[in-house]
C-alpha cells in the first residue's frame, strides 16, 4: 500500500503547466514534484491537464489539496509504521502489561482543532471557486444550446441558427456558456434521461437533466481538439456517447460558421443525386418511414431549420467523426458498415424508441447514400 506514493512508470508528455504562482518555496517544490508526477501520466482526456481557465481554476485549487493530503498520508502511515515497529512485542517479552493509558485530552483537542483549521483553509477557496466557475462569464461570450440524447449530443448555436452534433466547434480564448438539457425524442423531455457533459481539459462536468436547464462554462486557450464523454450513466450505450470540442482561431471559426449557415447543396447528377433522393431531402419528412429525412435534418434552404430526432446532417462531411465520436467520417468502409446495421456498430434500442434502427438497405442504396453524405461538406 505504501508503494502508492511512488509514481507508476508512464510516458512523459510535454506541455505541462504546473501552477507555480504565489507560493512559498517549500510549497513550490512540493507542487512542482506533484505537478511533475501528475504530468508524467498525461492522457488525451486527462482531468489533470487543463487547457482553459475553467479547468485551470479547479486544478489550481486541487493541487495544493493533493499536497496536503499527501502530507497527512505520509504522517498517518508513518505513525502507523512507527508504532508497528517500535511497539511490537519483542521475543524476550516478560509478559507484563504495558502502561494502561486511557487517553489524553490535549491530544484529542489537538487532532480535532488542527484538521478543522486545515479544512477551514480549504473551504474558503472552495466556495469562491464554486461561484467563479458557475457564474456567467464576464464580458462577451458565445452561447451554445446543448441537448443530451440517448446516445448523442445535439448542439445549437442560437446566434447563427446552426445545428450540429457531437462536435462542438468553438472559437479559441472565448468563453462559451452551454445551456444544457436532455430530451428524447427530439426536444421532448418525456423520455429524456440524465447525461453529463464533460470535456476534462476544458472544464469539470455538469449533469444534463430532462425538463431542466443547467449551465456550464468552457473556454479553450489554444486551437486543439479536445476529447470528452458523457459522464452520467445513461443506459445501454453510455460509453458510446463521446463529445469532441474543436477550438478554432477566430478567423477559422468565422469561416466555419459561414459554411454551417449555408444550406446544403443537393447534388443533381450521379450516385450522390440518387442518394439525395433516397435520403428524402427534397421531400422533407413525408417520404415514409424508411426516409432518412424522417429523423435527420439536411437543411437545403427551404423553410426553417428544425432539429430532427437524430443528428443534423446538413454539413455531415465537415465533421471528422460520426455516431458520437465512434467512427471516422473519412473511413468510407465504416460508414457503409454503419448503414448496413447501425445497432451492430453501436448498441442501441430502436425497438425502445432510442437509436437508429437497421433499415435493411441494399448495397446499391448504401453506395448512393454514402456518396450523398460525403458530398455534404
Amino acid at each position, binding site marked *: 500500500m505504501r508503494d502508492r506514493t511512488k509514481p507508476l512508470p508512464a510516458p512523459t508528455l510535454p506541455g505541462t503547466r504546473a501552477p507555480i504562482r504565489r507560493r512559498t518555496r517549500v510549497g513550490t517544490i512540493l507542487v512542482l514534484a506533484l505537478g511533475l508526477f501528475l504530468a508524467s501520466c498525461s492522457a488525451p482526456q486527462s482531468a489533470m491537464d487543463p487547457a482553459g481557465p475553467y479547468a485551470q481554476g479547479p486544478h489550481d485549487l486541487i493541487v495544493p489539496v493533493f499536497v496536503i493530503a499527501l502530507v497527512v498520508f505520509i504522517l*498517518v502511515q508513518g505513525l502507523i509504521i512507527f508504532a508497528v515497529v517500535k511497539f511490537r512485542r519483542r521475543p524476550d517479552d516478560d509478559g507484563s502489561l*504495558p502502561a494502561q493509558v486511557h487517553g489524553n485530552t490535549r491530544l484529542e483537542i489537538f487532532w480535532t482543532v488542527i484538521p478543522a483549521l486545515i479544512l477551514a483553509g480549504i473551504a474558503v477557496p472552495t466556495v469562491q471557486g464554486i461561484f467563479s*466557475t458557475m457564474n456567467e462569464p464576464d464580458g462577451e461570450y458565445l452561447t451554445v444550446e446543448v441537448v443530451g440524447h440517448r446516445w448523442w449530443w445535439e448542439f445549437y448555436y442560437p446566434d447563427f441558427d446552426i445545428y450540429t452534433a457531437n462536435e462542438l466547434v468553438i472559437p479559441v480564448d472565448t468563453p462559451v456558456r452551454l445551456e444544457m438539457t436532455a430530451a428524447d425524442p427530439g426536444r421532448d423531455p418525456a423520455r429524456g434521461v440524465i447525461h453529463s457533459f464533460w470535456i476534462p481539459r476544458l472544464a469539470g462536468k455538469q449533469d444534463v437533466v430532462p425538463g431542466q436547464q443547467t449551465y456550464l462554462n468552457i473556454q479553450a486557450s489554444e486551437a486543439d481538439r479536445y476529447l470528452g464523454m458523457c459522464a452520467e450513466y445513461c*443506459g445501454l450505450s453510455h460509453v458510446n456517447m463521446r463529445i469532441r470540442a474543436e477550438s478554432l482561431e477566430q478567423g477559422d471559426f468565422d469561416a466555419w460558421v459561414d459554411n454551417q449557415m449555408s444550406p446544403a447543396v443537393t447534388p443533381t447528377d450521379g450516385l450522390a443525386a440518387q442518394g439525395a433522393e433516397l435520403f428524402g431531402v427534397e421531400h422533407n419528412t413525408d417520404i415514409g418511414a424508411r426516409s432518412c429525412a424522417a429523423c435527420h435534418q439536411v437543411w437545403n434552404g427551404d423553410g426553417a431549420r428544425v432539429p430532427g430526432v437524430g443528428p443534423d446532417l446538413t454539413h455531415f462531411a465537415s465533421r471528422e467523426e460520426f455516431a458520437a465520436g465512434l467512427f471516422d467520417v473519412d473511413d468510407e468502409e465504416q460508414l457503409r458498415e454503419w448503414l448496413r446495421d447501425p445497432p451492430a456498430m453501436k448498441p442501441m434500442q430502436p425497438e425502445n424508441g432510442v437509436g437508429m434502427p437497421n433499415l435493411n438497405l441494399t448495397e446499391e442504396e448504401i453506395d448512393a447514400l454514402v456518396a450523398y453524405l460525403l458530398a455534404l461538406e
Partner: protein
Amino acid sequence: MSQSTPTTSRRSVFSRPRAEKGFTSWITTTDHKRIGIMYFFTVLVFFTLGGAESGVIRAQLAQAEMDLVTAEIYNQVFTMHGLTMVFLVVMPFGAAFFNYLIPLQIGARDVAFPRLNAFSYWMYLFGGIFLYSSFLLGGAPNGAWTGYAPLALDGVSNMAFYAIGLQLLGVSSLSAAVNFIVTILNMRAPGLTFMRMPMFIWMSLVTNFLLLFAMPIIAVALFMLQFDTVFGAQFFNPATGGDPILWQHLFWLFGHPEVYIMILPAMGIVSEILPVFSRKPLFGYAAVAFAGAAIGFIGFGVWAHHMFTSAIGPVARSAFALSTMFIAVPTGIKIFNWVFTMWGGKLRFTTPMLFSIGFVSMFTIGGLSGVTHAVVPHNAQQHDTYYVVAHFHYVLFGGALFALIAGVYYWFPKVTGRLMSEKLGRVHFWTWLLGFNLTFGPMHMSGLLGQPRRTAVLPAELGGTVELYNLLSSLGVVVLAVSALVFLFNLIASIRAGAASGPDPWDARTIEWLSESPPKHYNFAEIPVVSHRDEFWHRKYAEDAAGQPVAVPAGGSEDHVTAEAAAHGEGDHDGHHIHMPDPSYWPLVMCLGFFPVAYGLLGPTPWLIGLGVVWVIIGFFGWIIEPVAEGDDDDPIVEDPAAPRSGVAAH
C-alpha cells in the same frame, strides 16, 4: 428450549417446533447466535456472486475495446455488483456481527425480539434471492445501484426488480434495527452503563439508529419509483413537471447515512481488536464513541455531496462542501485514536490485528480522497470517474471489509471453539492487501486521467497509460480471487479441524469471552454484573501497589468468574432452569408470503399480490397466536398496572 419440562398439551399447528439439531432446527431457530451464523454464510454466498461479477467487469476492462460480454450484460453485471456488495454483503455482514455479538457483549441471553430477528434474516435471504431471480426472468436491473430516474423508469432498465427487491431488504434492515436498538437500550447487564459499553456496541447502536431513520427514506423513494413504473404515477416524469433530482435527493438522503451504516460496525470491530492485541485499553474511549455518534448525526446533512455536478445551485454546493469537510473531523479523531491505542503497547500481530491495522491504513487513504471530493470545483472532474470508484472501494473494501474480516478471525474461536490457521491467515492478509491495492490503487490515476465509470468497454481513446492502469486493476482481481480462496480454505479447514482455542485465546477485554466458546444456547449461566469498562479484563487484572497492572490469580478476586466455572457451574447453573425463547416456524412462513407479493408487484398481477398478502396475514396471526413457549399457553410476562414499576431502574 425447556427440554426439562415435558409438555402435556396436545401438539397443534400452533405448537412450537422442538428440533434442536438438523435442518428444521435451523429454519425455525430464534437463537441470535445461529441467526448470526446463517447471516455469515449467506453473506459468503453473495460475496462469491458479487466477486464473480467484479471478475466479469475487470475482465472486460482489462484491455481497451474488449467484447467479452455485450453492453447489456455488462450493465446488468455492474449494477448487480453494486447492489450485491452494498445490500447483500457489507450490510448483512455487519448484521451477522450484530446478531452474534450484541447479546454476548451486553450480557444478555438473546435479542429483545428473537422471532423478529429470524424474520429479518429470512427477509434478507429472500430479498437477495428475489433480486438474483431477475437474471432468469428477463434480465437483471441495469440502471446502476443508484437507480437514477428517469433512466430507472424506462422498462428496458429492469428496475422493477430493484424497486421491489430493495424494499424487501429494507424491511429486513428496519426490523433488525428496531430489534437491536431495543436490545442495546433495554437488555444490558446490570452495571453496564453507556460509558462502559464495548465500542462495538456503541457503533452498533449508532448504526441501527441510522438504519432506523435512513430506511424509511429509501422506502419512500422506492415506492415513488415503483408507482411511476408500475402504476404510471408522475413523481419523476419530466414531461409533466416531475423532478428527476428529487430521486437523487431522496436516494442520497438515505445513501449517505448508508455509507456510515456500512463503515461504523467496521469501526466498532477495529476498536475492539486493536486494544486486545496492543494490550492497552482503547485510547480516547469517549472521543471515539462521540465521534461515531457525531458521524452518524452529521451523516444526515451531507447527502448532496453526491450531487455536486447535478442540477443544484452554487449555494447548495457551498453548503454541502462545508458540511462534508466538517464530517472529516470526527473521522480523523477516530483514526488518531486508533493509532494511539497501539502507541506504547505490546503489539501482537495476529491475523485479526493485521487486518485491523490494514483497515486503519487503507481507510485513511479513502478518507483523504474523500476530502479531495469536497473541493467542489474539482469534484466536477472527479465525479463519476474511476477516481471515485477508487475512493469508495478504499472506504468499503479497504475499510469495512478489512475490518469485518478481522472480526471473523477474531471471533471465530468464540463461535467455534477453534482457532483459524494463523499461517494461512497471514497469507490471506498479505495477498489481500496486495491484491486490493493493485486493484484499486491504479483507479485513482485512471480516473484523474479521464476514465468515466460505468462504461461497458474501456475506450481506446483514453490512451495507453489509462489502459495500463486498467490492466493492473484486472490483475489485482486475480490476486484477490486467490486470496479469497485461501480464506475460504482456512475457514472450512478450521471449522473442521482447527486447534482448540480455549475460552479466552486472545486475552480479551470484553464480556463475550466470559461465556463458553462456543457459547451455550443461553449464553451466560448467570448474567454478569458489570462494574468496569473492559469488564472481562478487570476480572483478570488488577493494579499492584505501584500502579502496575498484574494478573489476578484465578479465583483470587471475589467477582471473578472464569469461563470454565461459568460453564460447569454447580447445581443450578446447568442452564436447565433458564427460560429461552422457543423456535418458531412463523417468521419463515410469513416471509415466504412476501414472494408472491413481490413477484405480483412486478406485473402487476393482482391475484398474486392478494395471495401473498393473505399469506403474510396468516403468517402474522400464526405468529401472534402461537404459544410463547412450548408448554406455556401464554405470555409469562404479567404487567400489573396497579403496582409501580420497581426493580428495573436504569443502571
